């Protein structure tokens, strides 16, 4: 295990009133310093839950991690005590969320909230912590940071709040940053700024970044490798070049088709027919088969769930219909990804 953060076969379930929901089903991925992993998929496919599982933030009585490992710097986070994992949370692995509007506590100043994170993990005097908070606000491009530390969240715009969230997450210089749809709730121009900021900070700190999104355009701008999730599972996982060059899974292809192109009228994500399946009643076999343009009447697609296989170097895929799938070895994390070797 030389990877910085690697999760293997992660399974997370929720007990709901209507039954057991398996929100994450055998998901594996890895990420290394200076690299960005993009996780993409329609909403409800388990992206957030997989990230929260890594952080140990699954809501307790109803949710439970029922299988898998989360390896970070050689130890399995799932085996740590609550106290041990708190040392890592916010310190070595930090996370930012989709809703900058509600993710900050409305009744404390942003400075107070950043200082709280700093003092928790670093032995600093209060004065120094406040200085550090101002500094980290400056680093994420908050103008007149020395005054803004005393602002309450509602006095800031959405983009500014997301910058505050990033400043707070980065205040302890984490090794891994998990960003769960950090730009979804923002305007397009602000989106670009935030993404640019994330890329700059990541390059500067040689931080590992896990970026969750449902937007392939975001992936294209910032990710090195991409995991495509569908209905609690990863269905395709490869480098961003390979994916944009030739997406192999029909679901991924559908995502690409729904992207707006130049000179084309904008189409929405629902260019893939049908709807996201209900996690209480997933279809049998390949969960995508009812919506799949290729396999909807194939007996095998309907009855057997395809596993991830290494269909070519650096590219894993779970689809019976792909050429060469039968002869490929099972594999859940792409090995010898070309970009990773050359740039590593």
């Amino acid at each position, binding site marked *: 295990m030389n990877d910085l953060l690697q999760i293997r076969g992660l399974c997370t379930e929720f007990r709901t009133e209507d039954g057991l929901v398996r929100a994450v089903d055998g998901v594996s991925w890895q990420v290394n310093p200076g690299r960005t992993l993009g996780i993409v998929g329609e909403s409800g496919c388990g992206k957030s839950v997989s990230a929260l599982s890594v952080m140990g*933030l699954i809501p*307790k009585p109803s949710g439970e991690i029922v299988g898998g490992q989360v390896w970070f710097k050689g130890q399995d986070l799932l085996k740590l005590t609550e106290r041990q994992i708190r040392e890592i*949370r*916010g310190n070595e692995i930090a996370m930012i969320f989709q809703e900058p509007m509600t*993710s900050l*506590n*409305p009744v404390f100043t942003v400075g107070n909230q950043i200082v709280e*994170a700093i003092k928790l993990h670093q032995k600093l005097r209060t004065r120094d912590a406040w200085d550090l908070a101002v500094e980290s606000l400056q680093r994420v491009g908050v103008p007149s940071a020395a005054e803004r530390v005393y602002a309450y969240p*509602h006095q800031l715009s959405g983009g500014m709040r997301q910058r505050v969230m990033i400043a707070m997450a980065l205040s302890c210089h984490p090794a891994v940053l998990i960003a769960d749809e950090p730009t979804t709730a923002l305007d397009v121009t602000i989106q670009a700024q935030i993404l640019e900021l994330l890329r700059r900070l990541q390059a500067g700190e040689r931080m590992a970044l896990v970026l969750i999104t449902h937007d392939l355009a975001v992936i294209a701008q910032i990710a090195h490798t991409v995991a495509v999730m569908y209905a609690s599972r990863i269905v395709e996982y490869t480098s961003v070049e390979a994916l944009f060059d030739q997406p192999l899974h029909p679901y991924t292809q559908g995502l690409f088709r729904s992207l707006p192109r130049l000179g084309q009228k904008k189409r929405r994500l629902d260019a893939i027919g049908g709807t996201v399946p209900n996690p209480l009643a997933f279809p049998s076999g390949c969960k995508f088969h009812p919506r799949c343009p290729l396999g909807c009447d194939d007996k095998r697609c309907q009855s057997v769930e395809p596993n991830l296989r290494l269909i070519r170097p650096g590219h894993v895929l779970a689809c019976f219909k792909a050429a060469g799938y039968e002869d490929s070895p099972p594999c859940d994390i792409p090995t010898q990804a070309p970009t990773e070797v050359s740039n590593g």
Partner: protein
Amino acid sequence: MVSYIIRRLLYAIPTILGVLLITFILFNLIPGDPSYDIAGKSASAETIAEIRRELGFDKPRFLDTEALSQGRIAAAFDSQFFNHFRNTLTLNFPRSLTSHEPIWDEIKSRAPASLTLAAPMFIGLIATSIAIALVVAFARGSWVDTILVFICVVGMSIPMLSYILFGQHYLAYELGWFPILGYESGMQAFKYIALPCLLGIASGLGSYVRFYRTVMLDEMRSDYVRTAFAKGLSSPRVLFKHVLKNAMIPIITTLVLSIPFLFLGSLLLERFFSIPGMGSYFLDAFNSRDFPVINAMVFTTSLLYVLGQLVTDICYALVDPRISLR
């Protein structure tokens, strides 16, 4: 700040006028002339006239049209309706029908005893409820939570009278831990209000804990709590710093809702423990059909309620930075 308070006070004016209208309808319009009731069947015409004059029932109901036609504007408004408004608003209540003392003096002299009981009861109830609600919210989903919530629901199903009877009889009479009844002003008062206070708190605890628990759990589902945990904060820290301060906002806004409970508590407790407060004054008036006192009490209590609301609004603005005082 001052302009905020003034604005809130202005909002209260229609409410106060509304209360006056309701009390006028209740005590002047519906019952009509009560003099015969009061004087008794065998009263002489003079006595009745006397009572009528004392209570102002000799005046025309709304407007003295005769005086108006003669151009005496001021006299025209010397009617039951306008006198009711004027006298009540200026707290210039008539005398009590039974004790013949001025009502407002009586209220003033009884207020301290009521306050001595109600204030500790109020503070104790809110503080205990918040403390227990925090524990319950901390243990959410566990059997501790389930059992405590169930106890709360049982507690709020039992009527307050049963608490009082049980407490007075067993804790005071049988066990002798508290005086059975009575009251003295000054420091001695605490000996006498201890049991009524405890009983009031006990009977209110169930519904308060349950409500505050819901408030806390709602807060705990918020995104900022997830952020706080993601920073690596421990559960108690998140609960006591982040959740509690946010939960105070709905808690403060609903504090004024406990005023009716306090009145009910005072009424019954003062009655049972012979505490000479406003509650027992009201009940005595009720039993002796002393309607000017009831009228005065309705007005003063609603005045207190409106003031309570004002204080609530100010506290609210102080806790929540999103509310500005301007």
